[in-house]
């Protein structure tokens, strides 16, 4: 099966530091790939490189066979590769509902002239977008909060909103940046079940996380980074036994079992 994502020798340097060093791996369609590593290992940088928040110094990224290095982020998102952010997750001042409508805006944008002139297509589209927003809010359990300002939501729900926004474009490959950070036990369970269902719907997921329960519980394979380099790649049991990985985490509070 052709991998949905192929990363080859991807590298990025900040100052004198190799933030990501020759990362090479593939992601199979439909799998959940976890990315772990101690703080500063380069996990978020890797996501940033793939989604082209900034350009790599060397290496290639192929999404569905097409090289996407240098593509503007909005184009990559429209191709079906969507990522979330650790911090700002939503349009804080707008309501939850408004956020869901805005989240779909980019994908269905017809272009400057058509949007300015045409009215009919807009109405059709509005109906579809309303349905989708409704579906997504229900899926993540946010439908009761639709009228609240996004920034007023409890933290856990804000992160779920971030996930809903990411799903608004029907992504095929979803990259989540520490979605479980700051969640309590109940919220974490909710999140995990949501990600599970997303994968069951055919979406491939790359999950950057610190929370081992989430990683071990969800991922088919795990990629481990340390100081920007890949030190291991394998199934959860393999990673848990891997000596390099254990060494890397020595001194960190996180336990990998």
């Amino acid at each position, binding site marked *: 099966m052709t991998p949905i994502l192929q990363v080859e020798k991807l590298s990025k340097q900040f100052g004198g530091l190799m933030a990501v060093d020759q990362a090479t791996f593939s992601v199979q369609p439909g799998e959940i790939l976890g990315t772990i590593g101690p703080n500063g290992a380069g996990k978020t940088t890797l996501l940033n490189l793939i989604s082209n928040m900034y350009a790599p110094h060397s290496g290639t990224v192929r999404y569905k066979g097409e090289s996407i290095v240098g593509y503007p982020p*909005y184009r990559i998102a429209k191709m079906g590769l969507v990522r979330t952010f650790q911090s700002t997750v939503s*349009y804080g001042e707008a309501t939850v509902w408004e956020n869901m409508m*805005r989240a779909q805006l980019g994908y269905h944008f017809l272009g*400057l002239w058509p949007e*300015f002139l045409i009215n009919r297509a807009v109405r059709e589209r509005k109906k579809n977008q309303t349905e989708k927003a409704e579906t997504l809010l229900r899926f993540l359990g946010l439908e009761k909060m639709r009228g609240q300002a996004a920034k007023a939501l409890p933290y856990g729900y804000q992160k779920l909103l971030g996930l809903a926004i990411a799903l608004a474009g029907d992504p095929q490959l979803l990259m989540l940046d520490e979605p479980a950070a700051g969640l309590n036990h109940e919220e974490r369970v909710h999140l995990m079940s949501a990600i599970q269902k997303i994968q069951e719907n055919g979406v491939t997921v790359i999950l950057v996380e610190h929370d081992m329960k989430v990683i071990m519980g969800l991922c088919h394979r795990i990629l481990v980074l340390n100081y920007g380099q890949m030190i291991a790649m394998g199934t959860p049991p393999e990673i848990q036994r891997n000596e390099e990985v254990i060494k890397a985490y020595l001194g960190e509070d996180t336990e990998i079992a």
Partner: protein
Amino acid sequence: MGTTGPDPMQEEGKVIPKSKSYALLALSVFLFFIPVLWADEFYLNVIISIYLNIILAVSLNMVIKTGKLSIAHAAFMGIGGYTSALTVMRLGLPYLLALPLSGLMGACIALLVGRLLLKLQGVYFVLVTFAFGEVVRLFFVNLVEPFGGPTGIINIPPPRIALFPGTAFTLLSKVSYYYLVLGVMLMALFIIRRIYQSSIGKAMDCTRETEHLAEFTGIDTFQHKMFAFAGGGFFAGLAGSLFAHYYRFISPESFTFWESVNLIVINVVGGMGGIAGPILGSIFLVPLPEFLRGFVEYQRVLYGLILILTLWFMPTGMLGLLNKALDRMKSRKPGKEGTP
């Protein structure tokens, strides 16, 4: 604009709900009759001045809507003004061509320059537009040929409109000029209102509020910023042409940094949400100097004070105040829900 507190640009007008375009149409028709009701030259002059400022302030609002605060708006007005004066006087272009050409010139330069400038964020963008505005002004001041240098261009002819071959009339009277400016203003408002109501306007809001979220959910933020900047340049150019042929004289002094600041003040004081804000701001601030004729020095003191006090006490501007008043009125009527 700020990271905390209510976003002044979210504050949209509630006086005339979006759906009631008919109310706006009625208002526009009413405006056509103003010269009939008030033929007084002095008042017409003030109103024309207000209309010109509305075109400028609303088009600046569009640029600000994408999160870019530009202090170069007056420079684009200048570009339009000089283009119009020169093409009419040197090339003999009919005014009906010179006018749109002025707008296009503003838009083209905005596109050229925006490509580079719009990459800058926040305060740095403001500073670079300041520098750009000064560069443009220095061009006008120092190139005596063709811009006339510090004295500018005088004896700019009034517009000669030839709609059909053989019929040509010159807009000599204030009343006729009133209709010209009214027409351009209504067109500008109509276009910008339409943009704001469409997905383009929404995308602009997204770009302003949380740019990276917009970008990573498929919105081409750079395109929207360019569009707004070019649109701003276009309407500023139009206003410049109208300005030049009305006052029959332009100089670099008409298009300085302070003129740009004035437009920002109009936006801040009037409120920046929607187009109602800058309209309110123009109506309130433009006539002020006229009616405070006797106290010239105190005028500008008041001006500075108004700016500071507005940011201090009513960051959402006059529009915000008006909306609050309307909300309070609505909540007094039992059973009536406000429009979302």
